[in-house]
């Protein structure tokens, strides 16, 4: 589970990762339909990256990562729809408050969960699962936020400045803007993982007692990873709501929380790029074969996931990457 192998599998060279992202830039050639679909896949990929940081790198098995995705999404919807005041309706402000709100919530929740002899492992999984359940139920019956119907008519991203408005609703430009954001986040995460802080994260994950013994503040290191992950999930959620023009309780709860867990586990939780690609891959397969397979799709996904956890605990894509020819194993 740990040791040098963790490091070896984690090291997808940055240029290779960027090449993969550059390859995605060809998607708009496939037409508007797929461009729009891939815009959403990209954001699910971004969301998966956030969990990869929290779970794969910091060892916090969070069964409720969609809390932050949904929170970011709802904040974005409320602000850009002018529900908090017409004069506040700005995409920039929406994104900023969504990211900050998700981070703040994660900070408070994380402190509650990790302080003292903090929760970890299965306890943490079950408690975060229950919290996601609570949040979904609350939003479901919160009438000011549309309750179970959600909030429809969320305006698209408006990248205007100096009084000019530039609404981002055409598929190709929107896709490239989102791809740019994803690329920036990917590079930042890659640098973070490779930085001294990333090494400390691995230390805290592998052996918290020893890390504490060396003088590291385990609580604050865990909290930092949790908060950064939540901020990224909030960003993904905010962008998703602006792309989908719809915020619904399914974004915040239990269902999406476990879906992202499946993507990240399937891809390989320790490898940010693998988690990203798995999210896109699962969504793509669902988009292509979902209609063909109908109800059998979910059955197959459940079984494949089960088999993958047993046979490839490090993830399908990460295992494949580690076995690429010319790489040390």
């Amino acid at each position: 589970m740990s040791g040098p192998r963790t490091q070896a599998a984690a090291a997808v060279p940055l240029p290779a990762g960027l090449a993969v992202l550059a390859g995605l830039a060809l998607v708009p050639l496939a037409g508007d339909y797929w461009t729009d679909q891939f815009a959403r896949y990209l954001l699910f990929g971004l969301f998966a990256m956030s969990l990869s940081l929290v779970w794969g790198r910091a060892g916090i098995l969070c069964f409720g990562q969609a809390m932050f995705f949904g929170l970011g999404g709802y904040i974005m919807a409320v602000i850009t729809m002018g529900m908090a005041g017409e004069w506040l309706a700005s995409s920039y402000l929406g994104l900023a408050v969504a990211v900050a709100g998700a981070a703040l919530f994660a900070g408070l929740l994380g402190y509650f969960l990790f302080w003292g002899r903090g929760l970890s492992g299965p306890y943490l999984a079950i408690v975060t699962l229950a919290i996601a359940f609570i949040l979904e139920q609350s939003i479901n019956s919160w009438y000011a936020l549309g309750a179970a119907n959600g909030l429809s008519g969320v305006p698209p991203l408006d990248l205007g400045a100096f009084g000019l408005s530039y609404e981002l609703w055409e598929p190709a430009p929107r896709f490239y803007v989102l791809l740019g954001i994803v690329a920036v986040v990917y590079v930042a995460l890659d640098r973070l993982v490779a930085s001294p802080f990333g090494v400390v994260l691995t230390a805290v994950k592998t052996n918290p007692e020893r890390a504490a013994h060396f003088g590291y503040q385990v609580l604050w290191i865990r909290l930092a990873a949790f908060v950064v992950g939540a901020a990224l999930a909030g960003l993904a959620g905010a962008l998703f709501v602006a792309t989908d023009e719809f915020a619904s309780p399914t974004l915040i709860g239990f269902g999406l929380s476990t879906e992202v867990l499946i993507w990240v586990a399937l891809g390989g939780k320790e490898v940010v790029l693998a988690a990203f690609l798995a999210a896109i891959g699962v969504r793509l397969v669902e988009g292509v074969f979902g209609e063909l397979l109908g109800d059998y799709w979910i059955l197959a996904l459940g079984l494949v996931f089960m088999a993958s956890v047993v046979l490839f605990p490090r993830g399908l894509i990460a295992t494949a990457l580690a076995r690429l020819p010319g790489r040390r194993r």
Partner: protein
Amino acid sequence: MADLAAILLNSLSYVLVLILVALGLVIVFGMMGVINMAHGELFMLGAYTVVAVERTGAPFWAGVLAAPVVVGLVGLVIEWALVRHIYRRTLDTILATWGLSIALKQAVVLVFGPASYSVTAPLQASLTIGDFVYPAYRLLLMAVAVALIALTFLVFLRTDFGLQARAVIARPDTAAGLGIDTRRMYRLSFTIGTAVAGLAGALVAPLISVDPQMGLGYLIPAFLSILVGGAGPLAGVLVGGGVVGGTDSLLTIWLSPVVAQIAVFALAILVIRLRPEGVLGSRR
């Protein structure tokens, strides 16, 4: 007064069912370090067994008898095909059994459709004492549940099998060294746990709507009960189930069911956070 008695009895029946579901979970967790996220779906399969048996025209009780057998067999297959490969990889068991739970849920949707079924209670009679009227089936359910819980405790506390099982829970390696076939203990315990969940699902079927999502509604409270009571001693389940189930049904007197559930979950999380070893567990 009569209202209060009905509320207390409803609350008690919920608590007893919760304990039945949690018992299977805690045995499997304590013994093999397996967190079975598909336990709620096994409970669901028990209820659907009753639906399937009733479809053939057989009486309700035939379904109740069939449920633990069918679900126990499913448990045996799950143990053989999945769980034995991931003993002691606790976090992986959460994920793998989660995949299993998705697959089971979807299999039920494929066979029975996504809509909910209702099962009519076999006993339509009610118990009447003065102005207090209570459905007889619920009383019967409680009696059966109490008997089952007592039986489970008897098996684990008073039989040779139970002694061996507790030995495996406490010190798996030493137990194996003393000649206990731990593989067989694991298989048996897992099967017993799933059979009890199936039976619980079958018994509850007339009281709730039987649908593919019903498992989750019991899984989370059951887990919270275990953690609140303490995962170590078996008796922790009784306390945890009583606290979680009891608070939930008592709060519904004043609050809507949704708010009551939210409040109970929040309270349980608080208890778990402040006493991770559970109410009954000893401080490490």
